[in-house]
Each structure stands twice: as C-alpha cells, then as structure tokens.
C-alpha cells in the first residue's frame, strides 16, 4: 500500500531528497511499523507525532540506519536518499549517517572531552580533515545558539554545561559533519521549559539551511516548531502513518477523524 499522503504534495516546498516507500520495521517477531511511505520537504521542520508505542522513533531510526543496531531487528521496503536506496548492496552505512545526522533524547556530550573536542568529534570519527578548527567550532556553536555562552570556556568539559546547553552542544556536534538532514528523537523531553524554548528556536533557525525531522509526543511543541506533521498510530498492531500534511492543516482541519481526536487531546 502506497496510498498514504506524501508531504511533498505541498506545492510551495521543494523535496529534500529523503523518502521512504512502504517501510516496515520489526523487533524480533514484533512488527513495529508497517507500510510507511513519506517524502520529506526540504529546509523545513517535519514533526513525527503520535502516542507512545506508535513506531515514530523506530521510523526515525530507520531513516539513518540506526535501527539495525538493535539485536534481531529487521526491515522491509525502501528508504531513498536522492533516489538511492540507503539499504542497498554496496552502501556504506557510515556515509549515510554523515548525511543524515541524529540528536538523541537525552543530552549526551562525550564525557571525557572538552566542548571544543565534542564539536569536532564527528569529523575525527569519520576521518574527515579539519581545515580551520577555530572557525568550524565557532560556526557550529553559533548555529546551535551556544557560541555566546561558551566562547570563553571552550576547553571546559562538556559535562560542565547545563542540560539545555548540553543538548545544544550535541546539536552543534551533529552540525559539524554538515548533514543534509538532522533527525531529532524527542530532543527536549529531558529538559526544563526554558531550555526547551531555546532549543525550539534553534531548530527553527536550523531549518533555514537543512531539513529537520523531529519526533515529539508534545502536541504544543509540534505546533510551535514544525512546518509539517506526520501522525503515526498503532491500534495494538504495527504502527502506521495515518496522515501527513502541513502542521496548520493537521491541527485545524485534519482529514482523518483519528488525527482530529489526537490533536484535540481525546487520547494519547
């Protein structure tokens, strides 16, 4: 079945080059996600929403080949990046992950490293040569909205920052390898409201240059930061994509009654 709505149908937005076709995911015998076809719009924020256990995080991890690190996991369907299947025969998964970066739920700067080392750690890991370290560090930290706060203590440990700052450091770390797409898995769920707002501002700024896909189970957050929304739901079986559209439309005039019920807080 590939009759699910595709986000690209919005005329004013270009296509980001990332799409899934009939994507399925399993954990062992458990069928977690079924038949998701979705095309992501470029230079915008797409929110993946839905109650917990609906497969939205699984879907996110499918997009940059992080799903396969879970033992006994399996998948089916296609995930295409610029038309090439990222699960294809001769694809280097590390190269995919460089193009499609990821920020995790809990802030997790590398504990043994300074702020500066954290920012450039991705380049070291991927064996990418660094031309001008100082510029790069400043650029990434600025884009993550952290530069002003830490410019005088770049050699302090990453762990010395507050939770919100740590998460912005993690964003800066992901930006250093210049991904086309940044996946975020509930990046604010471990943070206080003030830090959450700062991160949301950062996300919006990022979307001017790159494509952001964010998983959130917070309706308000989805309506604040995202330009597009995809609603996932599981009725006990595998999670499916119910509806995907512009966020404004999803929250005011959704096509599917289940979406309406969910965004109005009737369940979830």
């Amino acid at each position: 079945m590939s009759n699910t709505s595709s986000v690209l149908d919005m005329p004013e937005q270009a296509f980001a080059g990332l799409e899934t076709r009939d994507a399925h995911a399993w954990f062992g015998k458990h069928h977690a996600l079924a038949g998701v076809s979705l095309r992501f719009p470029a230079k915008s924020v797409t929110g993946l929403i839905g109650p917990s256990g609906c497969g939205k995080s699984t879907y996110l991890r499918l997009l940059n080949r992080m799903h396969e690190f879970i033992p006994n996991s399996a998948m089916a369907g296609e995930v295409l990046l610029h038309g090439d299947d990222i699960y294809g025969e001769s694809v280097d998964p590390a190269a995919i992950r460089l193009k499609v970066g990821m920020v995790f739920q809990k802030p997790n700067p590398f504990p043994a490293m300074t702020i500066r080392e954290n920012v450039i750690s991705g380049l070291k890991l991927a064996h990418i040569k660094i031309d001008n370290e100082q510029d790069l560090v400043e650029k990434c930290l600025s884009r993550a909205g952290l530069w002003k706060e830490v410019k005088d203590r770049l050699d302090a440990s990453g762990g010395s920052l507050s939770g919100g700052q740590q998460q912005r450091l993690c964003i800066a770390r992901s930006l250093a390898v210049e991904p086309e797409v940044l996946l975020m898995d509930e990046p604010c769920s471990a943070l206080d409201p003030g830090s959450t707002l700062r991160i949301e501002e950062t996300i919006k700024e990022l979307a001017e240059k790159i494509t952001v896909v964010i998983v959130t189970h917070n309706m308000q957050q989805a309506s604040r930061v995202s330009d597009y929304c995809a609603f996932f739901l599981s009725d006990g079986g595998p999670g499916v994509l119910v509806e995907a559209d512009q966020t404004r439309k999803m929250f005011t005039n959704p096509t599917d009654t289940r979406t309406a019920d969910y965004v109005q807080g009737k369940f979830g």
Partner: protein
Amino acid sequence: MSEFTIPQPTRPWDRKRSEVVRSGVSLAIVGLLSFAIVLFTGFSGVDGWALCILLLCVAVLIYRGRKLSKKERGNATVQLVITAAAILAFAPWLSIFGSVLVKGIVGLKVNFVTSDMRTTVPDDDLSMGGALHAILGSLLMVLMATIITLPLGILSGVYLTEIKGRFTFLVRFVIQSMSGVPSIVAGLFVFTTYVSATHGPTALGGSLALGILMLPTVARTAEEVLKLVPDDLRSASLALGARQWRTTLMVVLPTVRSGLITAGILGVARVIGETAPLLLTAGSSTAFWFNPVKGPIASLPIYVFGMLQIGTEYAVNRAWTGALVLMLAVFALFFTARKLGGKDKR
C-alpha cells in the same frame, strides 16, 4: 484500515552471501598456505601454526584493504588485532580444559575413587591405589569450613542490606580487601595461631584456613542476593507490625534461601582447589581417618601437588586424574550455583 500485504522482513545490514563466501575462500587459502609453510619451513607446533595463520591474515587484510578508505582499513585492522588477542586470551583455558580431560582420563578408573594409598606406592600401576582418602579429606575440611563460614557470611550480608549500620562502608571494604589475602598468608596465620600451638597439622587447621578464604566470597554473594529482595516485602512485613528480626528471619531470608545456598556453593568452589594453605595447616596422609583435631589429613589438591612433586610417570598420571576430579567438582559446584542462582530472580 485498508488491507495491505506484509512484506518479508529482511536484514540488509547482515553480511552479504558473496562476502561470506569470499571470507571463507580467503580463510581456506590461509589454511592451505599455512599447511604448506608448516610442512616445508621451520614453523612447527601449535604456535607455529598460529603465527602462520596470523601473518597470512595480515597479508589478506593488506591485499583486501587496498580499496578501502582509511577509516575502514583502521577498523578492519583493529578487528583482526582484537580477535587475535582474544583468541590468545582464551586459548590457555581451552588448552587447560583439554589437557586435564585427556591426561586425566587415563587414570580415571573405579579404584581411583574407591581406594587410597595405604598399601600402594605412587609408582604402582594405575589400577592400584586411588584418591579416596584425599577426596574424603577435602570433603571433610570443606564441610567444616562451610559450617564455620556460612553463618558469618550470611550475617555480614544481612548487616550490609538489612541493618545498614555505622560500619556498613567499613565492613564492605574489609570484605573486599580480604578477598585479596594471599592463600599462603591465610595458611601462615592459622599455622602461627592454631597449628603450632596444638599438635601440628589437622583437618580443623585446614578448614580454618579455608574458611578465611571462603568468607569474602560467601559474604559478597549473600549481599548481592539479599539486595534482590524488593523493599516492598520488608515494608509490607513491618507494616503488619512485625519486628525487624522477625521480618528478616521469617520474610527476607526464606525468600532468598536458594540464593544463600548459592553463596555457600560459590564459597566452596572458591576454596576446594586451594593448595598452599593446606600445605601449612593440614599436611598429607595416605589414608583417611575421621578425627578433625588430631593428625594430618590428605586432601585432593595436596594429593595432586604431592604426586607432581614425585614426578614419575605414574605419579604424574595420578596428579592429572586428581586435577580432573577437582575440576569436575568445581564445575559441578559452579553449575549448581548458577541453576540455583537463577531461581530466586524469577
């Protein structure tokens, strides 16, 4: 919901069949080449083989690594190094299990466990004499050590988990440090305090030394086991008006009964092969008699040790057989502990 056909789950990240085949072919070539090298050059023995294979693997790595990026080449190199070092780490144990089994089984006849060395000299045929006295001696000493140590170990565990008094940190620290006391020092201690003050080596002396070595293991395992008891259970009992001592004795300890037995078994497994302290405290003999406070007593480790010291062919055979029995005993204890240990958790 519309009907859809569910596709077959796939794991595209698994190694491709072509890759597996290629690796297999490489390995086969490596094997054949090593065979040729061992046959026609100075390499020989197990270590010669291992070195050949390692060198050829490096060659294959270099050959196949031409096309890889620097990162992938580094990754593959490290994988080879780690695998080789891990094999080197595991090889001695496999060699030990193998040689104990192969060399020990030669002398493992019925008489080994049914007769002693009263009328047999070590050089006699293997169908004569045995280690019954040593086995009984070991059992007696280990049993006495357990009787002394198990209550103390459990009390320590109870103290650390139920009472949590002022000395908690100290007790835990002392138990940890005590597990590192060299066995010969424990033997020396019992010798200076007990053995030299009485009538020389006895079973009681041996079991005191073994008890010292057992205590940390028992105490630590008991603590681990008692930690698994959910606090709700204690609260529930206290809320019913039970005193702490009744709660501990009637509720907490019975819940982890098999875990506490596990603690004892692990303690026994820890000391049953101890040799050095028994040299000083229990001595050796050629037959078994049941008097814990008088006269030296044989034990399985000392039997092995003594036979090895004699060094003649049959004596060494007896030593290997003793080692086999000892190892089987340790493993049996170990598996029993595992079986029991899993029980409480469920």
